[in-house]
């Protein structure tokens, strides 16, 4: 079941609901075989974009092409797109096997062959022998696997997934993230994945498109999105970002743009330095908390600015001695500082 991977191109897509712009001139080009995640808060337009690709939302403007073919006006049932829905959307009146064989029956695949293909798809998601069960007898994770099998069994042109793991508990979710990624790598099928969970996006994706207010804020590889965010929204949406006025930091490299702010991730700070080049920030401790694998400390650095630093567990001894109100000095490597456009009045 090796599929030919197709590119997707979204050109100037617009969709409004009344005065609300769900999609505000969105363009993306997705590479063949890519695993691309649409990441954003609710109302950011990510699901609208996915549903437009699926054909359930009719865009006001713009076009969508799959493999060079314009599908903007094609009805959903003619698009050959495998979709995995958030709540699984399995057919409760059919057995597991009948669910998975459903798209094959619609395509007039002979009964025997359809059953064989459906069983192969079930094996692919580790559900061999589950064919006769009813949907209501399955756990959430198993239902999600059936939904996956059903979405890939008819060799769709592309795959769309709408927060498929959000209903599962944390451990199962993390396990399924790897499984979905493995399934994608086995099939090599172009996949668009929607989530609001930044960690899920970072774990699974080739590239991430961060969306907010109907626009794509940044489209990049996970490491670039995390380390080199283009704007404040992206910086804050992924991980714990501190965005500080550059004059609060001493020892900044001379090349640092004077009018920009400095973004430093919470985990880039340390309370001691190993002699390598570093910048320093002085402040007083506002709060501290032990969080298992790390310590979180909040520091007031003056002019109403607070920063959050995450210190590794091997700084436990020092962290335990810290007292609220005492002065602290934080160090960070210059390479961990990213310039970001200032939104403060100059």
């Amino acid at each position, binding site marked *: 079941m090796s599929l030919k991977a197709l590119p997707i191109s979204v050109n100037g897509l617009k969709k409004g609901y009344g005065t609300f712009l769900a999609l505000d001139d969105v363009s993306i080009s997705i590479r063949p075989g890519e695993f691309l995640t649409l990441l954003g808060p609710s109302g950011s337009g990510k699901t609208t974009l996915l549903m437009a690709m699926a054909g359930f939302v009719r865009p006001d403007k713009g076009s969508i092409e799959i493999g060079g073919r314009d599908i903007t006006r094609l009805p959903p049932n003619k698009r050959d797109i495998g979709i995995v829905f958030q709540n699984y959307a399995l057919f409760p009146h059919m057995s597991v096997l009948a669910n998975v064989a459903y798209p094959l029956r619609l395509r007039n695949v002979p009964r025997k062959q359809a059953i064989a293909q459906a069983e192969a798809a079930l094996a692919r998601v580790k559900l061999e022998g589950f064919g006769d069960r*009813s949907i209501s007898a399955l756990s959430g994770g198993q239902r999600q696997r059936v939904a996956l099998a059903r979405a890939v069994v008819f060799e769709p042109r592309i795959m769309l997934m709408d927060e498929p793991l959000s209903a599962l508990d944390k451990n199962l979710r993390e396990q399924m993230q790897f499984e979905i990624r493995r399934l994608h790598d086995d099939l090599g099928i172009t996949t668009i994945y929607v989530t609001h969970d930044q960690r899920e996006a970072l774990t699974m994706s080739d590239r991430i498109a961060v969306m907010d207010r109907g626009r794509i804020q940044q489209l990049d590889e996970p490491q670039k999105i995390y380390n080199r965010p283009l704007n404040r929204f992206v910086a804050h949406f992924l991980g714990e970002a501190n965005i500080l006025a550059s004059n609060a930091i001493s020892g900044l490299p001379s090349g640092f743009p004077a009018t920009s702010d400095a973004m430093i991730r919470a985990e880039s700070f340390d309370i001691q330095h190993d002699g390598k080049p570093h910048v320093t920030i002085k402040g007083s401790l506002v709060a501290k908390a032990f969080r298992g694998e790390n310590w979180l400390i909040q520091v007031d650095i003056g002019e109403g600015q607070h920063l959050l630093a995450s210190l590794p567990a091997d700084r436990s001894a020092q962290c335990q001695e810290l007292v609220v109100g005492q002065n602290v000095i934080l160090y960070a490597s210059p390479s961990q500082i990213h310039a970001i456009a200032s939104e403060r009045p100059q």
Partner: protein
Amino acid sequence: MSEASGERRLFILLACPAIVLTGFGAILPIVWIIRQSFFDKAGELTIANYGRLLTSDLTWSAFGTTLSLSVMTLAICTILGIPLSLALASVSRKTAGRLMILLLLPLWTSILVRTYGWVVLLRRDGLINSFFVATGLSDQPVPLVYNFTGALIGMVHYMLPLFVLPVYAAMRDIDGNIVRAAASLGASFWKCVRTVILPLSTGGVISGATVVFVYTLGFFITPAVLGGGKVNPISIRIERTLSTFQDWGEASALGLLLLILVMLIGAMLVSVRRLLRLGVRNA
């Protein structure tokens, strides 16, 4: 535990008035009718009432009329009601609510008023026949009332909203993503209706069918007025037996036979529902 059983006792207490009411209002009269059906006019204990009824062609033709009225009403309600429910379930809840008011409005009018309203529309010089003749659809008035057709039209009009309510509710309950999933997997609209929407709303259709049978098996006013004396279901036979012959024994026996018919059909619908639930899963 004591708290839970205390709560249960309270619920049973609260249910008492209703239990007493059904006991006196429904069960006692039925017991009385059963007793009465075994007495003749002279007050002698006998099974002659049943013997006479079961060997009479009139009884069997009344049963035939009752059944064919019910079955035809259900058939037409199904043909008209399922597309209507589909349409209602596919528009927004707000629009559906407004359309529902239109659908239920007739239920607020007295059945007698509505039945005579149909006479006005359906009779030889009524609105519909005038239209047929004026447009040349028919060169003479079509007999639409004071016959089986008339009774059927009136009954369908009465039953359609009551049939649509449970069917619509069942369709509305279907998760929109399930319908979207079917479409994404390649199902056309009709394929989706046939393989997903209808199977998932069979519960509603069976409830609707039950309501239609329960009402129509005992329908009296509509066939009496719109049937014009030519349509004689069991309900009308019971009334005649009483008003013309004052034969309480035979009327009670007829009533009991009707009750048995209702129960038989009810049992049939329950087992159909059970069979569908099993059968569809393995489809």
